[in-house]
């Protein structure tokens, strides 16, 4: 077997293959391909509308089944039944056969059956629920009736002894949602002009409402009034406000009789309802155990048919022809897969794979693993690399966390971050299986980024000599304080050597510490930025060499490099050179580098304070070189285009766009040409006019020259953020835990505990979480803008092989 190409520095080489599969094993073959995830199929039927394709009926059938499963899942959710996760036994086999067609048919039949049954049960239970609530409301009204009539005796004739009302007074009773009681009363008052008696009582338990399908709180009410017409009006008003009306007798005995009758009916309904619900629950429990695996099978089956719809169906010869991209080093494994399949199915017609020559741009495929995946994602967020161009994801593995660490440099914070990341990394198996919410998933998938960020932060923190804003005194200091002084006297240390690694701790807490650390950090950012950009810029050379794009080297790379190095390369060398000279011993004035650089442009040939001999001449030469580079950048490429491409197209030369590369292609030639018309990637680059090239190059030149300056300045954010981080950390220390050190005894203990907690929580939340996020975003920007603009084209399409996706219900929603 051919060893797989690592495909991290450049994307994997892809081949366009045609697969001829006999119709009878097409389904099984595509199923096994979906299991492996090797091929990205191209759509060969772009001219055919979606619903005219060969396997639309199958897909539709499966769609319907999936709808049924979704309905069942919804039902399960309503009844709060958890679905059982699928047993992942299938992961153990390497080679999996497609389930038989009869099995799928069984699933479809089964699905319809179960849906019908559960639907019936659910409807019946709903119906019963309605009846139940209706009767319950009636019962409540009857019970409330006693109260109504007892209080309403004032309305009866004072001289009549029995309970019954005069015939002229009639009443309406019913229930109404509690929120609408006030409205009803107001409307009735207006409608009947106050000529009524309205009473209501709150019902103790919420009752099922058929309209909103939930339980709502209700009130029972009674309205006394005169006359039939008015009564009709009252009824209409009440019904329009969702009230349910119940007729009750005004006689106490009749009411208790009604109550007895209703109670017996309610008892019947309770029994029936309970049986229905139990049956439904049992059914649903049985479904919950299986539904996940059913859904997986069906989702896969559907994916297979959807893929088959992309195939060219040659009905005469009973074969399906698929076309797709395969990594070149996987061709053998693909062939083996199909051969094994043919053998195990016992079909005598073999499946044939044929590699096509093509000038289509293949998709970009970087082989990532769990470590590189997150870093690759950083790059892919910005753009997919062009096929076979240098993948920025590879250097990003180091430069991204390191640039972060330069801004986040603090050993303590770095340790906190690495500990969290290490926790995620060591438990990745357990955490990987569990369900994660969005934020946690982000931290989990970026765990290796976090780990490297933490580790590099420890290193940079060590160099900044910063641990929670305190210095470590690991090595012998390079400074010596005077032998004696008075209290409060300003003293200055004497240099006796150089601190071996990192910033000297003698600077900690001094009055001019910032003066020194600012100068150091600013120069550090310029140097690191310049090196980072040069490193990235070199990749454009690597790309040009790989694609044999000589004109890009001559017209873009070399002038650009000279321009960049002539200005900022020179500045960087000056910075380092100035450091290596002992200005104090030589008794010379150290020149300011910023002024040197500015004067190099504003008054060329004049140097106020010399850094080194013949500086003026060197600077004039560099300036001239940089200035010459600008027209070179502007002109070489367009001129080259004018003299080569322009002439060739004049001679009737048209860029090769022919399709007849492969031998086995002849019979499909017309078909291939046909769908080339709507392929966007085709034809670009050929129709380029001279004007386009000029405009493109002018933009590139202006952009490049401006960016050389602005991008270098942009790296100063490294200085700004690391300064801010260090200062914030110092302020937090002095404002919280340092206060506790001024107290003694019990107060001291309590203060220490309280203030330490405060300090630690704020450290985690503000300094690690908030500052970390901000530093991460800045590092992201430095990569996307400052580094990747130097070489990255990003015009590729991602490689998306046909592979079965997990079919979780939660994922669907």
């Amino acid at each position, binding site marked *: 077997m051919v060893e797989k190409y690592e495909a991290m520095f450049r994307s994997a080489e892809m081949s366009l293959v045609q697969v001829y599969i006999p119709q009878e094993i097409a389904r099984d073959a595509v199923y096994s391909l979906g299991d492996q995830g090797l091929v990205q199929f191209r759509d060969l039927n772009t001219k055919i509308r979606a619903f005219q394709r060969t396997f639309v009926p199958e897909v539709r059938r499966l769609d319907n089944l999936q709808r049924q499963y979704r309905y069942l899942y919804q039902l399960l959710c309503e009844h709060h039944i958890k679905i059982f996760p699928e047993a992942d036994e299938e992961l153990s086999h390497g080679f999996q056969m497609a389930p038989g067609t009869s099995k799928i048919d069984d699933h479809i039949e089964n699905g319809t059956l179960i849906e019908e049954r559960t639907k019936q049960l659910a409807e019946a239970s709903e119906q019963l629920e309605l009846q139940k609530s209706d009767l319950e409301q009636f019962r409540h009204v009857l019970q409330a009736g006693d109260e109504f009539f007892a209080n309403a005796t004032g309305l009866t004739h004072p001289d009549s002894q029995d309970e019954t009302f005069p015939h002229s007074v009639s009443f309406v009773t019913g229930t109404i949602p509690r929120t609408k009681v006030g409205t009803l009363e107001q409307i009735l008052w207006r409608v009947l002009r106050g000529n009524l008696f309205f009473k209501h009582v709150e019902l103790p338990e919420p009752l099922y409402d058929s309209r909103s399908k939930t339980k709502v709180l209700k009130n029972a009410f009674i309205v006394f009034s005169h006359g039939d017409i008015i009564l009709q009006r009252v009824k209409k008003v009440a019904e329009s406000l969702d009230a349910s009306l119940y007729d009750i007798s005004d006689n106490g005995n009749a009411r208790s009789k009604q109550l007895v009758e209703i109670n017996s009916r309610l008892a019947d309904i309770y029994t029936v309802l309970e049986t229905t619900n139990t049956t439904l629950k049992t059914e649903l429990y049985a479904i919950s155990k299986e539904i996940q695996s059913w859904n997986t099978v069906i989702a896969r089956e559907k994916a297979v048919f959807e893929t088959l719809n992309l195939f060219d169906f040659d009905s005469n010869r009973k074969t399906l022809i698929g076309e797709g991209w395969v990594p070149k080093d996987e061709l053998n494994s693909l062939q083996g897969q199909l051969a094994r399949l043919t053998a195990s199915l016992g079909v005598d017609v073999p499946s044939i794979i044929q590699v096509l020559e093509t000038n289509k741009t293949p998709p970009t495929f970087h082989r990532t693993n769990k470590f590189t995946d997150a870093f690759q994602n950083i790059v892919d967020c910005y753009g997919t690399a062009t096929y076979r161009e240098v993948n920025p994801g590879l250097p990003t593995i180091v430069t991204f966390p390191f640039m972060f660490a330069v801004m986040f440099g603090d050993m303590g914070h770095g340790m906190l971050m690495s500990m969290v990341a290490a926790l995620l990394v060591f438990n990745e198996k357990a955490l990987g299986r569990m369900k994660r919410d969005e934020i946690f998933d982000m931290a989990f998938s970026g765990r290796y980024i976090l780990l490297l960020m933490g580790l590099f932060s420890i290193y940079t923190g060590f160099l900044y000599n910063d641990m929670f804003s305190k210095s470590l005194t690991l090595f012998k200091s390079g400074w010596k304080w005077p032998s004696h002084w008075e209290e409060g006297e300003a003293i200055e240390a004497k240099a006796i050597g150089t601190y071996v690694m990192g910033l000297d701790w003698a600077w900690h807490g001094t009055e001019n510490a910032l003066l020194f650390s600012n100068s150091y950090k600013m120069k550090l950012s310029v140097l690191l930025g310049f090196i980072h950009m040069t490193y990235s810029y070199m990749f454009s050379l690597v790309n040009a060499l790989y694609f044999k794009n000589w004109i890009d080297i001559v017209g873009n790379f070399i002038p650009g490099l000279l321009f960049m190095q002539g200005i900022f390369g020179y500045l960087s060398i000056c910075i380092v050179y100035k450091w290596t000279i002992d200005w*104090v011993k030589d008794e010379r004035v150290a020149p300011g580098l910023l002024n040197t650089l500015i004067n190099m442009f504003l008054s060329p040939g004049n140097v106020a304070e010399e850094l080194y001999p013949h500086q003026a001449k060197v600077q004039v030469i560099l300036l001239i070189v940089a200035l010459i580079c600008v027209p070179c950048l502007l002109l070489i490429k367009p001129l080259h285009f004018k003299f080569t491409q322009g002439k060739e197209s004049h001679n009737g030369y048209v860029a090769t766009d022919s399709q007849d590369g492969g031998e086995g292609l002849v019979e499909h030639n017309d078909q291939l040409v046909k769908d080339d018309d709507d392929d966007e990637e085709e034809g670009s680059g050929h129709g380029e006019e001279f004007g386009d090239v000029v405009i493109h190059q002018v933009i590139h030149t202006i952009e490049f020259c401006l960016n050389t300056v602005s991008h270098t300045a942009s790296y100063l954010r490294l200085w700004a953020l690391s300064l801010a981080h260090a200062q914030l950390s110092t302020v937090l220390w002095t404002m919280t835990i340092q206060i506790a050190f001024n107290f003694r005894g019990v107060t001291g203990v309590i203060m220490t505990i309280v203030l330490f907690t405060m300090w630690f929580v704020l450290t985690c939340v503000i300094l690690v979480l908030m500052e970390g996020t901000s530093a991460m975003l800045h590092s992201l920007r430095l990569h996307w803008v400052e580094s990747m603009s130097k070489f990255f084209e990003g015009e590729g399409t991602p490689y998306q092989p046909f592979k079965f996706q997990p079919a979780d219900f939660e994922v669907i929603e």
Partner: protein
Amino acid sequence: MSSYTVLVAFFAVALASVIFWFVAPKENRTVWRSTVILSMAMMFLMWAFTYLAQLHPLVAPRRSDLRPEFAE
């Protein structure tokens, strides 16, 4: 102690990088090589700049809050 320390360290890191280029694990070789060598280079650079910045200092630390007992 002088700027030659930086040069010595540079050659040491360069040598280590060359050695690692050949002994890098077979599996995921590109990633190993790039990651380890680039890390060493960046860490060296950062150390070197820090060291160089303090080699011939133009300002000395100054403070007035030190107690006389602190004198050696």
